[in-house]
């Protein structure tokens, strides 16, 4: 590995057991203020419901041990704060810290969803402003911020479509989904009560518009499109696609996961999209936190507005805001309370930081991806020729000839101080390597990434075993996933008593 391309030399490792293994009776980390009322006799008051032993085997550790335990654990993680995540379709951009600060303010973090509306005008104003901003960004007429994540947003979108079609007399049976789509799309369609009809993308991951004309029958409720596609390529005939659907009374759903290529440049609402979801934890910078929380607002055209999940934010005379649950045509609730408010706060803070200049983030994101594509074009197989937007998908075809596949290359990238790109997705490209740098990467970081990828390609040609057995510098090597699935161990259990000497 050439020194010049190495960004990190060694991944940190410390020995740290499970918290339960550090535990010992009588230790405490948190102390409460003393009880200022007469103590209740729990046994008497709860009778046979009394859990008299407390929670068995619950950890008992001191404050410093908790701090050290989790601090050490954290050092085993890669993170955006450490370096680039070239993960295609995830939009791993910088998570601004001011967003964390404002979400924790007293008066923001402390608010109860059932408190009187006259004491919640601050929260409601935040919701209203975010709604307005997202409508401006998407070019849609109406929106709900209730869904907890993208997948829930997709479900909400499909339920809106179903309710609308039902009102017209026939909810219809099928949803068309390109085979390049994210797995949540078909999974969601089934939950919404539709059959999935997979449609084959043509060679650039685009929708085959001519074939589509035949496929859109009166049984089709909607087409779920991702634009740009999961190959990072814009769907140029999207307006035509919308038209074909509309003529048959069907609707166009857009998976907004790739909004990072469109924000400020164009608006899905202008191109005929009827309903779409956004991923606030992708385009709008809210932190991934190791896998969530997120938020998946759904923006829609006027025709779907009456079916929005309750409650809906309305404005009364004098500017007073209120959450209205009296919506007879609503599809109901998809989640308790109004939504992941804490995530909404962060997304709004992000938008406020950019203002009308938000377009520049999109430009930088596309510039970075195009730059990386140009530099790696001779090195890895590019299975198509159309220009990419914010992400580029290569294939491992060349390296495969030496037995090195996309997973191996991804694992070797770890040794160079990067997180792997997205492997083996989308399914329509064999051995896919999906790379999305986002606008948060400097030219320097992009160059380091390019250097690392070139170096790995060289290794694949001259020393394939090195790549196939990567990573070499991490705390643990490749883990036995087969064993984990065959005999799943999903929790720690207190071992039967044995002598100390055995340790």
């Amino acid at each position, binding site marked *: 590995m050439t020194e010049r391309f190495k960004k990190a030399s060694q991944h940190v490792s410390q020995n740290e057991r499970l918290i339960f293994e550090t535990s010992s009776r009588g230790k405490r980390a948190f102390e409460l203020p003393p009880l200022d009322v007469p103590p209740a006799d729990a046994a008497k008051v709860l009778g046979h419901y009394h859990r008299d032993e407390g929670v068995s085997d619950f950890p008992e550790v001191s404050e410093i041990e908790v701090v050290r335990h989790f601090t050490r654990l954290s050092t085993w993680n890669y993170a955006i704060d450490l370096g680039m995540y070239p993960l295609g379709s995830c939009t791993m951009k910088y998570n601004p810290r001011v967003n964390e600060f404002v979400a924790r303010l007293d008066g923001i973090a402390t608010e109860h969803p059932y408190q009187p509306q006259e004491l919640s005008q601050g929260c409601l104003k935040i919701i209203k402003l975010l709604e307005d901003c997202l409508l401006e960004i998407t070019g849609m007429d109406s929106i709900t911020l209730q869904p907890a994540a993208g997948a829930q947003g997709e479900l909400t979108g499909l339920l809106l479509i179903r309710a609308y079609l039902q009102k017209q007399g026939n909810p219809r049976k099928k949803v068309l989904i390109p085979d390049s789509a994210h797995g949540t799309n078909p999974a969601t369609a089934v939950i919404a009560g539709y059959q999935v009809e997979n449609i084959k993308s043509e060679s650039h991951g685009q929708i085959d518009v001519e074939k589509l004309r035949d496929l859109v029958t009166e049984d089709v409720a909607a087409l779920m499109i991702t634009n740009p596609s999961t190959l990072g390529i814009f769907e140029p005939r999207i307006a035509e696609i919308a038209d074909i659907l509309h003529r048959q009374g069907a609707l166009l759903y857009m998976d907004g996961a790739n909004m990072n290529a469109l924000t400020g440049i164009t608006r899905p609402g202008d191109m005929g999209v009827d309903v779409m979801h956004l991923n606030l934890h992708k385009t709008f910078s809210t932190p991934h936190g190791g896998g969530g929380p997120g938020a998946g607002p759904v923006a829609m055209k006027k025709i779907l507005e009456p079916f929005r999940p309750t409650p809906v934010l309305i404005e009364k005379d004098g500017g007073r805001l209120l959450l209205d649950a009296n919506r007879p045509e609503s599809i109901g609730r998809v989640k308790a309370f109004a939504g992941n408010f804490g995530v909404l706060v962060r997304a709004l803070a992000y938008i406020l930081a950019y203002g009308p200049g938000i377009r520049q983030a999109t430009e930088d994101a596309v510039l970075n991806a195009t730059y990386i594509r140009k530099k790696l074009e001779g090195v890895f197989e590019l299975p198509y020729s159309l220009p990419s937007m914010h992400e580029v998908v290569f294939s491992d075809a060349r390296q495969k000839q030496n037995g090195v596949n996309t997973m191996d290359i991804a694992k070797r990238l770890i040794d160079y101080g990067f997180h792997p790109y997205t492997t083996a997705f989308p399914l329509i490209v064999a051995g896919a390597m999906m790379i999305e740098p986002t606008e948060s990467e400097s030219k320097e970081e992009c160059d380091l990434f390019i250097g690392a990828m070139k170096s790995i390609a060289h290794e694949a040609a001259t020393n394939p075993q090195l790549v196939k057995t990567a990573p070499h510098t991490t705390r643990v090597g490749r883990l036995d996933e087969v064993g984990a*699935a065959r005999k799943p161990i999903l929790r720690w259990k207190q071992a039967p008593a044995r002598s100390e000497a055995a340790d």
Partner: protein
Amino acid sequence: MTYPPSYRYTTQHEWIDAKDGVGTIGITDYAQHELGDVVFVELPKPGAKVQAGKSFGTVESVKAVSEIYAPVSGEVVEANADLETTPEKLNSDPHKSAWLIRIKLADQAELAKLMDAKAYDAFISEKNKEASA
């Protein structure tokens, strides 16, 4: 691995070894290879009815879950209990000890619709050619 000549095969990569009205069913070596390391197998209980062409269970690897389709119709007489504890047998011995179910055949005639070993071999070779094209 060679495909036992006395067996019959489906395009979904199942095999059946039929004798005296009872059929032993499994998945082929090609199938186990595609799946990768098998971690779990879900099979029907004795008494359950299976229908030709319809799914009767699943084979799960780390990266995929595959439906298993009945080559012919019948009633389950026995399910291979070994696979509950050692599903990995499917990778090492898919044609013999890692059989999936035994059924009482409903209609002998259905067997004729299936491929013989030679035809299945050719079918697999075509698939491999397509894959590397």
